[in-house]
């Protein structure tokens, strides 16, 4: 019997996904292309990625995503350890007496395990897209898009200090900084209106035309928790004294319909709570997407977009919790000394009057696509093949975003009628590192079904993969 032990699990899920941030929320098709989407996303897929693409031909002029006929399912798990590594580190070994005992970790084992566990992020992304549709009126008028989405996201990164201490110990003169400790939780509701159209045509220029697009987003924030600052550290100095400082700031806000926020002291549930689909927000904001796409020739197009420009102001039921101070620890000499040390950490204040703002996951996207089957150097090609290349650069570290740049390549092959589209792609960099996407897409009348994984390596080599995920969704076309 298989035993599944989810060890340090990352789960991310989405329903009716819409791309958000540099790596976070996305669709089944995008997953199969290793999230290569800036220049090749069309119709509803272009919402949140590049509004200029709404003006491009998407085979049909109208596309819509609902929970029918196939409820979109996105299940993804990421563990810091592959099955192989898990069994190696935690599967034990057989000793001389035939007993199964824990493996003795050598220095290189410790270093490897420290690396695997210490740089691990717990991420939970869940998206509920109630409705999104895109309509391309004509080339002159352009295309419109609408989306109504709830997003819940969590990202927790424990400081590497903890695994360093567990596997390496405490060493003199080494700076143990907690600045890498980061926790973020958000619950946002977004209503977006997108529009894209052709801007310019060039007859004899280097480019054939330019499409432009813009999206306006109204954002309501229901929950926000963020370690907005953490400059805490300690060091065991050469005079055998541990010196350190803590300096942190936490921003916290939540809808007043659920609980009253008293900052560091407590959060008290409101009396007579009743569920509503439209609770009073704790914060509101406005966001923009802008993008351009240009056809260099019939085969090659280039896109540039900046999405989620804007911020949310949290000014209701909010608190800024700050703590700071210095400490020295010269050893445990008496209860009084220890109590005095603990008291120093109690210097925490709450500011319930000052509002704060958080950014949207602003992302710069650059992409190009090449229609290989129409390449002049190819005379005959089985079906159609679009090859895309993306560069995604998050400009902040909000939920779903990463300042680590990500480069990806995606191939979408439509071999023939009645044969599913075969998609694959590779991505490197970004928050999640290497990804090998693979998926299938097929059209049955007005419905397009997509199945994908963004970690095909988990199928090829399941024992060494740290990510296993599966995307399923559908899209209506008229």
């Amino acid at each position: 019997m298989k035993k599944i032990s989810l060890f340090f699990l990352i789960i991310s899920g989405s329903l009716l996904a819409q791309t958000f941030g540099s790596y976070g929320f996305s669709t089944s098709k995008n997953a199969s292309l290793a999230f290569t989407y800036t220049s090749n996303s069309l119709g509803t897929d272009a919402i949140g990625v590049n509004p200029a693409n709404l003006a491009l031909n998407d085979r049909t002029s109208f596309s819509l995503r609902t929970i029918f006929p196939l409820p979109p399912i996105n299940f993804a798990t990421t563990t810091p350890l592959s099955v192989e590594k898990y069994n190696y580190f935690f599967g034990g070994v057989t000793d001389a007496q035939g007993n199964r005992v824990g493996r003795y970790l050598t220095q290189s084992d410790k270093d490897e395990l420290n690396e695997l566990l210490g740089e691990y992020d717990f991420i939970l992304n869940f998206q509920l897209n109630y409705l999104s549709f895109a309509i391309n009126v004509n080339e002159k008028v352009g295309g419109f898009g609408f989306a109504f989405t709830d997003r819940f996201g969590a990202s927790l990164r424990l400081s590497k200090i903890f695994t360093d201490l567990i596997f390496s110990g405490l060493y003199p003169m080494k700076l143990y900084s907690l600045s890498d400790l980061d926790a973020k939780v958000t619950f946002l509701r977004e209503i977006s209106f997108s529009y894209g159209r052709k801007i310019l045509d060039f007859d004899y220029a280097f480019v054939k035309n330019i499409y432009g697009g813009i999206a306006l987003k109204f954002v309501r924030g229901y929950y926000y928790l963020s370690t907005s600052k953490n400059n805490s550290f300690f060091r065991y100095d050469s005079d055998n004294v541990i010196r350190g400082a803590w300096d942190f700031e936490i921003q916290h806000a939540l809808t007043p319909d659920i609980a009253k926020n008293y900052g560091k002291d407590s959060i008290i549930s409101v009396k007579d709570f009743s569920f509503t689909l439209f609770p009073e927000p704790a914060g509101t904001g406005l966001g923009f997407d802008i993008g351009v796409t240009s056809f260099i020739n019939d085969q090659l197009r280039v896109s540039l977009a900046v999405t989620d420009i804007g911020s949310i102001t949290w000014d209701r039921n909010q608190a800024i919790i700050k703590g700071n101070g210095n400490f020295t620890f010269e050893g445990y000499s008496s209860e009084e000394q220890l109590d005095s040390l603990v008291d120093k950490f109690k210097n925490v204040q709450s500011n319930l009057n000052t509002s704060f703002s958080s950014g949207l996951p602003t992302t710069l996207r650059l992409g190009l696509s090449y229609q290989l089957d129409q390449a002049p150097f190819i005379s005959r090609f089985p079906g159609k093949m679009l090859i895309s290349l993306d560069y995604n650069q998050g400009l902040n570290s909000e939920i779903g975003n990463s300042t680590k740049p990500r480069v990806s390549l995606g191939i979408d092959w439509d071999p023939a009628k009645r044969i599913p589209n075969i998609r694959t792609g590779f991505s490197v960099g970004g928050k999640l590192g290497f990804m090998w996407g693979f998926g299938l897409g097929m059209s049955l009348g007005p419905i397009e079904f997509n199945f994908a994984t963004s970690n095909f390596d988990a199928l090829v080599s399941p024992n060494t993969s740290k990510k296993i995920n599966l995307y399923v969704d559908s899209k209506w076309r008229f």
Partner: protein
Amino acid sequence: MKNKKLLLILLPVLFISCISELKEPVMPSWDIELNFPMAIKNYTIEDVVKKQDQIQIDNTHPNKILKFTSDEIEKDTTLDFLFDNTLDMEGDTTLPVIGPSFGFDMVIAEDSLKIDSSTIQSGIVEYRITNNNIFTVNITIVFPGITRRSGGSIDTFKIAETVPGNQTKSFNISMNNYTYRQPPNQPPGQYGFGFWAKVSISSSFIGIGQNLQLFIKVKDLKYTSLAGQIKPFSLGTKRQVVENDLSGKLKEFFNAVLFDSVVVTLRTQNSIKGYDIGLKNLQLVGRYRNGNPPIYLLINGKNSLDTTILPNSTTSIKFSNQNTNINEFIKATPDSLELISTLIFNPGYKIGAMVTTDRISFSIKIEAYSKMRIQNAYVTDTLELDIEDSTRDRITKGNEAEIKTEIENGVPLTVQFVGYFLDRNKNKLFYFTRQTTQNLPGDTLINISGANVNSQGVVTTSSNSVIRFNLNKSDFEKFKNAQYAVVRFKLSSTNNQTVVLSAENRMKFKLSGRINYKIEENK
């Protein structure tokens, strides 16, 4: 088409079968190294001596030096002789019966005892009358000086008897709660001091008859107060033995100490008015349990002292290390101290007064001040380790450890110490006072430099030492069987000179550690 369906079914099965089974988790083990500060402690000598009854701080001294004090060896004696038969007295007479009635006086006395007044708590008058006549005799004896208050009147102690012819009568009569005061009209001269008895005899006989014998004894007297003149007599030899506080666990320490200033105080107290008390052959003797010959405190070269305790006084006589051998006496560290003296009551045969609550006491106290020279003084202590087995198991997971101790020594003593663990059979396991992990034969000692001092022995600057204790894997494993820890200190004063040990001298310890430890699941 059939083959395609089969392939669709087989592919997932093949995929699943390629995934290795996740094994039941077993915690791995690994070594970690922790460097950490352990403690920083400041100790003043004052902190240490607060816990010692025998050491006080002389706050009057500019350097707040210490005073090592023996328990006061005190003998306290009450006036027992007021309750024994020492002061009994008797009188007798024989006389012919003359005529129908006659009287005479007699005094019941004790040689050299001249009682002016007394309160008799209890006592018995024993008398015997022998009538050698053939006729009956009536006899009345009145003691004018012995009275008792009874209600609103005063009773005088008296005896009245009728003795038939040729018979003897004996009687005991209680004298409880009578007081005695010598009457001013008591016949003086030949009768002297004593209880005056007025005797009256009557009979029917006319002429000179046969004699009458009268014997009176006042015995078992217990006085609550007494005034008068009492002859000198010995109260006996009194002795008091105490454990020597300047020995015991610190025997080896005091054995190596030469005090610059020691005071031996002989304190006497006598609450009796008028009477001196002689202390004869007063000795302080140090004795050993092993039967070694005793050591005597020599005062001015003699091992005994005669002195007199004056009436109603408290006196202190101080001796020093200049006129005694007290340093030698302390260094000899006897197990017990015995104070002996013979007490002579009223050696001057003086007149005085006393009550039963009067006390005579004498004591000796030794006070040594902490200006001293110490040369290789040893202090050894054995500690029983009360450590749970689970804790021992955890400790054995240590691979290697180093404890760094930075010492700022403001005490003018150089310290060398050695420490080791013993198993339950007192077999030596290993030295923990080791500065390397190689188990080198000579690597057992830790040295701490003494504070720097000036020519007067007063601390000028602290000295700094850094000690690193090193333990290896083998030590941790041996520690599992450790039941006792033995620590032995060797102390010497800085530069081997006389130094002033002050209550304000301090030592600062800063401990930090590095341990390489194996993390593994507890079995």
